[in-house]
């Protein structure tokens, strides 16, 4: 970088429209052109609309102010139920994904998985959900962007959920698609279409997510 005035980071900020370059050297300009070409190549290989949908799905749900419970009809009972869900002690508590009032766990025969854990093709997993009586679905978005409904497998509508049976029936064997796979548990008190939930179009659903790295 001997004949450079600006760092890569500054050039990137410039490309993002946040920094005006004053007196850039020829080496700066050449590097800027390289970065511009890399940016264009990256954007050419991604579906921006799809990425935005996934980003929106991954946003943590907004938390309601606690005092609203007190003024809602039956608020105290609802608050008590919510506290029961969150406080329930469990030795593997740090592995539970607490979504918006639901918990989500993924088990292999030998361990309980946390986000970031590595899994291999062929490994069998089962899902566990903690939620009030209602309707649930579990789907995954794999490294290629493909969405698969795992529970109820291949279905278009969520299945009825009974909180006395937290571990969902059936196991799935992971396929060989490498990369991060996002598993989403989706819950509602009312029946819902899974496709609509995937697109974020069902009001009132609660979602929890676990990301596994498939090798």
């Amino acid at each position, binding site marked *: 970088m001997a004949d450079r005035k600006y760092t890569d980071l500054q050039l990137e900020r410039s490309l993002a429209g946040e920094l005006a370059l004053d007196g850039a050297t020829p080496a700066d300009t050449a590097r800027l052109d390289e970065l511009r070409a890399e940016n264009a190549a990256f954007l050419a290989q991604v579906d921006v*609309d799809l990425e935005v949908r996934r980003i929106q799905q991954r946003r943590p749900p907004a938390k309601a102010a606690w005092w609203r419970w007190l003024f809602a009809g039956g608020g105290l009972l609802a608050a008590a139920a919510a506290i029961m869900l969150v406080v329930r002690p469990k030795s593997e508590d740090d592995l539970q994904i607490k979504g918006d009032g639901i918990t989500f766990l993924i088990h292999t025969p030998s361990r309980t998985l946390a986000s970031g854990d590595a899994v291999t093709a062929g490994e069998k997993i089962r899902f566990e959900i903690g939620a009030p009586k209602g309707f649930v679905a579990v789907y995954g978005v794999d490294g290629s962007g493909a969405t698969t409904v795992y529970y109820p497998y291949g279905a278009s509508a969520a299945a009825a959920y009974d909180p006395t049976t937290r571990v969902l029936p059936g196991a799935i064997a992971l396929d060989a698609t490498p990369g991060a796979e996002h598993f989403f548990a989706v819950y509602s008190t009312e029946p819902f279409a899974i496709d609509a939930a995937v697109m974020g179009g069902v009001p009132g659903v609660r979602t929890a997510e676990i990301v596994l790295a498939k090798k």
Partner: protein
Amino acid sequence: MAGEDVAELYRRHAPALHRRCASIVGNPDDARDLVQETFARYLAAKERGDAPFAVLYRIATNAAIDRLRRRKTRNEAELDAEAHAGEAGAAHRIDNAHDLAVLTKGLSEEELTVAVLHHLDGYTQDQIAASLDLSRRTVGKILVRFEEHVKKRAARNEFANG
């Protein structure tokens, strides 16, 4: 923020964030996933300025380092990293992202970003200050704190090993 605004934000910043994450985790698929995570965290934040690059960059760097921490088993990584840290001038010889992932545990987003730029990317303090709109003095203080953090971890390791 509306979907079209998020799309514009993504087009403007995602390529640089992807480059940042890929340089740390070494895998373009993981980097793409980390870019999504970065935007999701940014959009969930209460305060977002008019110039989001520095904030997004800090979030992306932290997310990527955090992914490395999870990828390697903790004990193995700490033994590797603290063995390096126990040697003289350790902080200056950290050239491995995995080591850095362990050594930076507990640092703030800003501290971690500065440490990664200096020790992994080889930026000078002046370059970091200019790139992140920080004062040279602030960058210097952050790096001193980082070196103290590394020494403490090394000392703890020596104590634990008798």
